[in-house]
């Protein structure tokens, strides 16, 4: 295998020789195994200086790809901004309705399956480490209202350290009753009072 020279300054750009000239078109040395290939398949040390059609096509595709990516990025930033505003309103609503104004660890679950704005926010019923106490969860829907909150249509409770599935939910109220979200009877001694303002 006989390769090109290692001079990077020479091999860095297109060949200055005109396209179609014998030398520029066949840079493979005589006797090389590549010389047996048809000219259009032979390797070259440098690109021929053609009319620049290929470069133009490549550049056009790159610009189109950039425009697509840029539109997608802008769209996603707008979408994320709206989601952040919504989730901030959700957290504000949860804290107001549960009277836990200083709680930080409120988890939110978005409807990523159907892309609706229905969110479920859960937090401890009493002060403690995250998820270490019975959880009260509120279902938020609709737009952000004038007071910076969203409408809470219902909710339910969950024992601590349990995954959020129907078998672990109890004491449903509001829309959660109609949706049949709870299957667990209220465990003895656990809170179960519907949250005022979120009871449908």
């Amino acid at each position, binding site marked *: *295998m*006989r*390769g090109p020279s*290692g001079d*990077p300054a020479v091999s860095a750009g297109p060949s200055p020789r005109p396209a179609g000239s014998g030398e520029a078109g066949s840079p493979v040395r005589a006797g090389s195994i590549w010389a047996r290939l048809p000219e259009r398949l032979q390797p070259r040390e440098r*690109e021929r200086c053609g009319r620049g059609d290929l470069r133009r096509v490549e550049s056009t595709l790159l610009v189109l790809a950039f425009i697509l990516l840029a539109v997608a*990025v802008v*769209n996603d930033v707008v979408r994320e901004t*709206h989601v952040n505003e919504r989730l*901030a309103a959700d957290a504000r609503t949860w804290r107001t309705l549960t009277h836990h104004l200083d709680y930080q660890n409120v988890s939110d679950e978005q409807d990523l399956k159907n892309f609706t704005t229905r969110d479920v926010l859960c937090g401890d019923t009493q002060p403690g480490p995250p998820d270490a106490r019975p959880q009260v969860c509120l279902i938020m829907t609709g737009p952000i209202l004038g007071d910076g909150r969203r409408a809470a249509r219902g909710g339910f409770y969950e024992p601590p350290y349990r995954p959020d599935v129907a078998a672990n939910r109890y004491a449903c109220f509001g829309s959660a009753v109609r949706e049949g979200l709870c299957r667990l009877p209220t465990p003895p001694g656990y809170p179960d009072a519907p949250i005022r303002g979120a009871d449908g």
Partner: protein
Amino acid sequence: MSSAVVQPVGGAARRARPAPALSRALTYVCGGLLLAALLEVVLDASVGHTQLIPYTPDVAGWLRETGIGELLGYRVFLVALLVSTAAYGGLLALARREAISRRWAIGLVVALGVIACVGPVLLSTDVFSYIAYARMGVLHGVNPYLHGPDAIRGDPIFRYVGEDWHHTATAYGPLYTLLSYPVAWLGVLGALVAMKAVTLAASLGTLWLTWRCARTRRLDPVFAVLVVGANPLYVIYGLGGAHNDVITMLLMMAAVALTFAGRDAPAAASVVAGALVKATTAAMLPFMLLARRRWATVWGTVAALAVAAAVSYPVFGVHGLDVVAALNRDAALVSKDSFATEIAHLLGKNGVFPVDHDLLKAALVVIVAHLLWRTWRGYDWVAASGWTLLAISVTSTWLLAWYTLWSLPLSVVTRDRRLLVATLAVQALFVAHQLAPLFSPVPS
């Protein structure tokens, strides 16, 4: 390394012109803004853990004791990132037009690198995974290619490893894993300091090789070094997070420099070494083989692979060389910053589906095939490698900031300036995608 030895092509007249006072002042302003923004991030990050800063061993307590910083929030970070990006853009524009002092440029990129590395770990827990894998192998006798860090839950490093990676075996190559083994004996803090020192050294090596390669190709080395060393994503994410991508960039640039020197076998071995740190580096090899068409390249590849197999097999078994499995596993991951996810959202889809992975792979195959053909017909293999690495990051469903760095040093040592423009455009889009918290509060 005197810049007078080689006259830069395509800008010789402009480069010879000394910078007027206004341009010089603007250059200093841009450099000062880059330093100030980075200092702000590092000082704030040293105060403690936030959503942006992972729990970190007390590696930057002396910075915290200065009492200057405040906990780093999204708003301050994003403003600093935007300021850095604008200053970087201004600096590059000035560097294209006027001669920037070589000493000043080198001083700036070295200062940025040192500041990024002396602070706490920024924006990623990956470095703790590196250390965890080393400690698994050395202190616990656990093969990091078969188990995740959860196999050493009692180890002091475990609490720092990202939750998403507790069960994940290492996806890095055996060379990197072996090289990281000695840090296991240094303790957690010592290991972190060593990792940061290695990252800084690799960065300085990368910048030096970038300078050399640019000069060899009669391109402006000052501009090349500024493009890489002052890049905000390189400094804040790459160096600040002590990512091993910087080591792969060093080996990539070593391969390019060796090829320029006509040393094909060591060049191929360097690419293989890079791939044995992070598999994506292997993307350079077919282009090198096609462009050079020398047996030395083949022998270098085979020899490096043989040495790697001989060294890593006794330590890791066959799993250490099963890079394809690791790549397939990572290819299935999806991050919210990936362009694939953003396009899916644009099209009204909830996210990326398996069929989308197949479409993206098909697109990548088409791009690589086109580049291979063009390389065969004389296109610059360094540029083709850069395009391929950029295409890998753009089509990946798991895009992280430091993945957009792979093509950066290659883009400044090739004459096809479209690669540099495309790389910077992709980075600009990445930065733009981070900005949502500037327009709305991040829910806590």
